[in-house]
């Protein structure tokens, strides 16, 4: 750059020559320089502004771009998330009270077909029919060659079957992963567990939905992702359940019964330790419900929690309880049992003539209808209703089975004085064996209400309101014990377990009114041990009969009672109960497990 001086000599000389002021030249020159500096500064400032603007633009563009990206991109699981909480199955396991698995999940494969991708549909249909013998090849071929684009062939197949289908080598036959519910113990606790079915289906997965039993009752809890890792622990004891099912099935066969139900309940907590209803089914292959006929003929029917039966004389204890509780009688008070009691056309009789009078104790021991009717009449309808209501015999039970939630006992619409009298010996009121078990549990545990439950109760905090005085409960237990030692349930004695109980044999009602002469429901409600009650066991046999002592016997004393005795003999040791033998109890034991 050529530097121009402020006073260029040539121009100054020239100006002086013409008599002009050379300072003007200097001023002009100086102004020119200032302008140049000014322009330079301005350019730089402009540049800086542009740069700053650019920086801001890029900043905003970056944020805006990121926002746009977030807005349009698909949400994705964070890859670095801790894997411990990840969900691997979609339904929680079910275990028994000791942690043995009752229901769990397995991953299997489903098989579907896409006919438009098939090379040789005829061959595929033929080969598939060989792998799955129950498939009809003609129908399959019709599906494969028709207009359908998607066909489920099998929803669950085994790995062996999958290999065989692979071997067919047909590209139109495809597999999808599928979770299935497995009940490893088969039919053992079928009515409690219920079963599951597939809900919404896709080739990649299918929903597992509970369709009955606890599976349906706790469906939301089982599928809750937050709780899917924690198994649902039931109050059922697998060993007791297995023992009970085997003995009841044997007893049902010997007694030639059509069905049987048994409930074993802890009297203090209301936990159902075991519940059996026969005939039963395999929840892995749940049968379809009956479309016509009596639903109680289906193996799906849970006699213990759904079967509403007149339970007969087992209700007599409630009449005694009401009178004792009200202080109307004590166990030795004499009741007039001369009969029959006539009430309009209706007559109340006893099976045998027991004389003119019996003590309250003996009314229960000998099972006198007239005696209990008199007691109930004296106590009044209101007292009876209050007691039965308090024991939960007028409402559905709180048991966590979807089938049981709406089973309400049948009571007379018009609860007259006659109804009070017949109900006192168990006629005109129908309840489930489960209702009876929970009512007996309240009578046995000192008179505190218990709610039957299928969930394991941690501490003994399950007591509800007081229904009866402790003394009344003790007297009732003495009565039950006497029924076994010298009454109608003499076959029920099991040495060392102080069994007490009350028999009940009720004629079965005909579907269109009246009662059968030769069909009974035989029930034995037992408590053991009566001196310190721990368990209630209710056994109901449907239409039992046995040839014994020279004639055909149907009453509970000959049918349900011996089976219960066998049940207690087998169950009590399994429940870790040591028999009380005379002379024992002096030695202190330390329990040792290995």
């Amino acid at each position, binding site marked *: 750059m050529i530097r121009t001086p402020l006073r260029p000599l040539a121009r100054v000389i020239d100006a002086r020559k013409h008599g002009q002021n050379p300072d003007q030249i200097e001023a002009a020159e100086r102004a020119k320089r200032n302008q140049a500096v000014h322009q330079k500064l301005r350019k730089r400032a402009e540049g800086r502004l542009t740069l700053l603007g650019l920086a801001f633009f890029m900043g905003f563009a970056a944020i805006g771009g990121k926002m746009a990206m977030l807005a349009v991109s698909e949400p994705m699981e964070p890859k670095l998330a801790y894997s411990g909480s990840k969900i691997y199955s979609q339904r929680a396991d079910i275990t028994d009270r000791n942690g043995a698995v009752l229901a769990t999940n397995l991953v299997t494969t489903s098989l579907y077909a896409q006919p438009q991708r098939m090379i040789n549909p005829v061959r595929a249909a033929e080969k598939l029919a060989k792998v799955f013998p129950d498939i009809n090849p003609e129908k399959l071929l019709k599906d494969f060659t028709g207009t359908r684009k998607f066909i489920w062939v099998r929803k669950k197949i085994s790995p062996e079957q999958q290999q065989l289908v692979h071997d067919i080598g047909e590209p139109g036959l495809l597999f999808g992963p599928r979770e299935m519910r497995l009940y490893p113990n088969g039919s053992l606790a079928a009515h409690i567990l219920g079963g599951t079915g597939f809900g919404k289906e896709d080739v990649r997965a299918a929903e597992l939905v509970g369709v009955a039993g606890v599976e349906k009752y706790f469906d939301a809890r089982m599928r809750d992702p937050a709780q899917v890792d924690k198994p649902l622990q039931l109050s059922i004891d697998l060993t007791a359940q297995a023992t009970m099912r085997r003995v009841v099935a044997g007893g049902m066969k010997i007694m030639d019964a059509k069905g049987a139900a048994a409930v074993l309940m802890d009297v203090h907590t209301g936990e159902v330790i075991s519940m059996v209803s026969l005939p039963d089914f395999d929840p892995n292959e749940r049968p379809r419900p009956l479309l016509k006929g009596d639903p109680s003929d289906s193996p799906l029917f849970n006699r213990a929690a759904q079967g509403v039966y007149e339970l007969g004389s087992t209700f007599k204890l409630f009449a005694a309880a009401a009178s004792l509780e009200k202080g109307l009688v004590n166990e030795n008070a004499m009741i007039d049992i001369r009969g029959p009691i006539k009430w309009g056309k209706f007559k109340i009789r006893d099976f045998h003539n027991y004389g003119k009078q019996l003590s309250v104790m003996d009314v229960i021991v000998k099972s006198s209808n007239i005696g209990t009717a008199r007691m109930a009449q004296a106590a009044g309808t209101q007292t009876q209703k209050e007691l039965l209501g308090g024991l939960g015999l007028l409402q559905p039970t709180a048991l966590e089975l979807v089938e049981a939630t709406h089973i309400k006992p049948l009571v007379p619409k018009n609860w007259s004085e006659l109804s009070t009298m017949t109900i006192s010996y168990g006629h005109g009121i129908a309840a489930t064996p489960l209702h009876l078990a929970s009512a007996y549990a309240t009578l046995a545990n000192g008179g505190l209400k218990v709610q039957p439950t299928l969930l394991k109760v941690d501490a003994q905090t399950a007591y509800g309101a007081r229904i009866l005085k402790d003394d009344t409960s003790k007297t009732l237990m003495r009565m039950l014990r006497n029924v076994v030692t010298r009454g109608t349930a003499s076959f029920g004695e*099991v040495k060392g377990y102080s069994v007490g109980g009350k028999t009940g044999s009720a004629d079965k009602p005909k579907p269109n009114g009246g009662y059968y002469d030769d069909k009974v429901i035989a029930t034995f409600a037992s408590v053991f041990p009566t001196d310190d009650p721990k368990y209630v066991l209710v056994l109901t046999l449907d239409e039992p009969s046995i040839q014994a002592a020279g004639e055909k016997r149907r009453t509970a004393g000959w049918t349900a009672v011996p089976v219960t005795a066998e049940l207690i003999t087998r169950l009590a040791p399994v429940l870790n109960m040591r028999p009380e033998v005379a002379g024992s109890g002096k030695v202190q034991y330390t329990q040792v497990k290995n």
Partner: protein
Amino acid sequence: MRSLFYLVCSAFVIGLAYWAYKENYKTQASLKEVKELQQQIAHEKETIAVLNAEWAYLNRPDRLRELVDLNFEDLQLIPLLPSHFGDSEMVAYPTTVFDSIVEPVTVIGGAQQ
């Protein structure tokens, strides 16, 4: 001086860029490893679930009862009864030492002739 500063700066930037490049690949490799491990964990958990189910199936009371029946001659197991509870007074001081069971037990019906 200034050019040295520029040089150092550019070297620094190149260094940072290289570091970032390396870190990026390392992160991606780690992510891949995590994914593989998670798949492995899922697989293991599935296997555990299958084994648990199988264990429960093999220990189902029906099967155990059958096994007891099959091996009655060797094991002589019978259902637990009240009479099986004993008193410590009933236990005599052991005089013989019992051999441990080394004979095989039958697991499948018909295997024992």
